């Protein structure tokens, strides 16, 4: 039975007013603009776009400001906003082979055509706090430049593919399943898994990916290639009858090269895992590739080692931080009636236990 309890409106209004004041912080400190967050907290903006599953840096920056920097709360705001928008259609699959790479590294081939391009990376920094950033003053010196090379940067997997050394990914057409339109059904296709992982929580996927490296589902991974840059987004417009570019998105793509499969009929081949994520989000993209690879055990005829990262239901049903936080955080909301019934039950059990003891004595 539900007992409707009213009250608390004034307390809630006052709590929200205080929240707004706390969000603003000390008024002697200048207020952050959304543009400042977009330009200077870029990697937080990228993470909110990726997990919010909506590419819009301005909205993502606004959500971060509104959420006081709580990124999961910001993702929640983006997911909620997304549901208010009509969907115009689906794009052509992006061609990451034409990416204008700003970073492109391979851990497997030193001399990969196109070169090792570090881009704006934290790698090789000493992770020492830079107190110069705390002092206001001149901006950094302009970055160095060098003559740019024209043309597309080839995928590293293509070199192995030419010799047949790696499992191919032949192009297939068709309409992929969409977990925002139909509820997830298991077993899931790889397309559905990749969609869930692309919007999944970075921390959760990082932990799972790390577990595969430590031996829970043995699949030693090399980063065959990691690339970050802008790709064109193209869509066919029915009223025009042709395909146009709607804009560009920055993506991070990670392709891992993993150990072999082979059989009596197939010679040994490297296998691969794939990560593709909105924005400059390389930790997430690498983690996604490792988890994708672990989840492919059935397709590749490997044994189930009972590892969490191999358990499709465990991974897919728990990687969404909005589903997770929604269920987790609801338990702090009033459960007075539920708990009242538990209280009555435990008192009754104790009473009965007491009576039983008395009767025995």
């Amino acid at each position, binding site marked *: 039975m539900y007992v409707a309890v009213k009250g608390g409106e004034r307390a809630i209004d006052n709590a929200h007013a205080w929240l707004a004041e706390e969000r603003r912080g000390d008024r002697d400190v200048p207020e952050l603009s959304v543009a400042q967050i977009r330009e200077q907290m870029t990697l937080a903006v990228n993470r909110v776009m990726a997990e919010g599953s909506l590419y819009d840096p301005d909205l993502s920056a606004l959500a971060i400001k509104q959420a006081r920097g709580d990124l999961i709360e910001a993702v929640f705001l983006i997911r909620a906003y997304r549901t208010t928008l009509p969907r115009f*259609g689906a794009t052509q699959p992006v061609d990451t082979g034409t990416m204008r790479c700003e970073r492109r590294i391979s851990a497997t081939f030193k001399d990969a055509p196109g070169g090792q391009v570090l881009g704006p990376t934290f790698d090789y920094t000493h992770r020492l706090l830079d107190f110069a950033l705390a002092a206001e003053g001149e901006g950094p010196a302009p970055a160095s*430049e060098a003559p*740019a090379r024209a043309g597309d940067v080839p995928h590293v997997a293509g070199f192995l593919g030419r010799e047949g050394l790696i499992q191919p990914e032949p192009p297939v057409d068709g309409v992929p399943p969409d977990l925002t339109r139909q509820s997830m059904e298991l077993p899931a296709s790889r*397309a559905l898994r990749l969609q869930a992982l692309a919007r999944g929580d970075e921390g959760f996927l990082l932990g799972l990916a790390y577990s595969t490296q430590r031996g829970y589902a043995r699949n030693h991974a090399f980063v065959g290639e990691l690339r970050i840059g802008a790709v064109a987004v193209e869509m066919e417009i029915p009223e025009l009858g042709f395909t146009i570019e709607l804009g560009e998105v920055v993506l991070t793509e990670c392709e891992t090269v993993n150990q072999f499969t082979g059989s009596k009929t197939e010679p040994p081949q490297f296998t691969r895992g794939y990560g593709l994520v909105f924005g400059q989000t390389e930790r997430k993209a690498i983690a996604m590739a490792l988890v994708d690879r672990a989840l492919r055990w059935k397709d590749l005829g490997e044994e189930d080692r009972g590892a969490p990262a191999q358990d499709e239901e465990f991974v897919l049903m728990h990687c969404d931080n909005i589903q997770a936080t929604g269920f987790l955080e609801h338990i702090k909301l009033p459960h007075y009636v539920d708990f009242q019934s538990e209280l009555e039950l435990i008192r009754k059990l104790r009473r009965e236990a007491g009576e039983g003891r008395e009767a025995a004595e």
Partner: protein
Amino acid sequence: MSEELGRAGWMGLLARARAGDLARLVAGLGDVPAHDWLRPPETGTVMVRGRAGGTGAPFNLGEMTVTRCALRLADGAVGHGHVQGRDKGHARDAALVDALMQGMRAGEVRTKVLCPLVAAETARRMARARRAAATKVEFFTMVRGEE
């Protein structure tokens, strides 16, 4: 390069342009031509797709905001705007230029709007490409003293 752009090419260029740059260039064309809305600007999303392994079967990566509109000029030309983001002015300017490019003023619009947009985009892309090129690793072979 803008001499070669066909309709799909200029629509893409207009979509990728900075909204502020496009607005300034459209303002440079003089009075905004009278137009009727066939579809007033509306914001929605498109589902961006990727391919497994970069080349394999398609999957849904996530959505992107898009604003679209369609308008008709007094001479009957119909222009479409489909631009990334939520800027309705950007979509309108793109549709106006698309319509003008189909009429008598196409040459003028190409010179005054498309050419500067191509130049701005090329400069923006080259600036980043040159920075990336400066971070390309040059390996040195260590010569071992065996001889």
